[in-house]
């Protein structure tokens, strides 16, 4: 099962999460891990689905994910400066 994550921001976040889930659950198939991660992101409002040109369902980052990432980055910068 292939998932179409047509968004750099979301793909990056999924890849980070993938590594950590894979270490914890080595028996899971890769599509099961990705499905679980996308579902989790969606339920947090960080990812949404859309219909791609070819009729398949794709995934993209929401404005909320971008905003949350921006805030985390700002917090990290502030901490470094303190």
């Amino acid at each position: 099962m292939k998932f179409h994550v047509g968004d750099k921001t979301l793909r990056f976040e999924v890849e980070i999460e993938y590594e950590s889930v894979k270490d914890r659950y080595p028996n899971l198939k890769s599509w099961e891990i990705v499905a679980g991660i996308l579902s989790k992101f969606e339920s947090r409002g960080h990812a949404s689905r859309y219909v791609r040109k070819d009729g398949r369902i794709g995934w993209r980052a929401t404005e909320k994910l971008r905003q949350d990432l921006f805030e985390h980055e700002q917090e990290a910068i502030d901490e470094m400066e303190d």
Partner: protein
Amino acid sequence: MSSTGSISSSYKYLCRVSYPDNSLNQDIKRLSELWHKVQADRGRDAIYDYLTAVYGLIEWWAVERRAVERAERALRITGLLVSEDPDPFASVIAASIAPDRLDRRKASKYARVLRLAFGRHCRAKELKDFIKNRGGINACIAAGRRR
């Protein structure tokens, strides 16, 4: 809701990811935030961002052939009255605007133009052009009525 043509032909591409209530709720919340943003925007075209987002949601629900069932869930989650066989576009508009209420004529106009576009197999990305090329929301509905 019938999902014909190009959209139903893609039914085979189901993505096997569950869609629990909290995910649906997040989608409605996203639309609701967009609605409020659009309300604060005085630009004439701002409404198209909201309509495109509503359309995009129903578009992928329709690919999974779950538009009506999910529309019912959206109404239930937001505490609105669930009618039998609700129209997905009208339901999602109502759910995303709740607890505010849009005047009935406006809500029906938006739902009608989205249904019309859906019936013509328009893609979410092309919705704004689809409506604008037909003279705007009102003209688009009027043209649809004449057909």
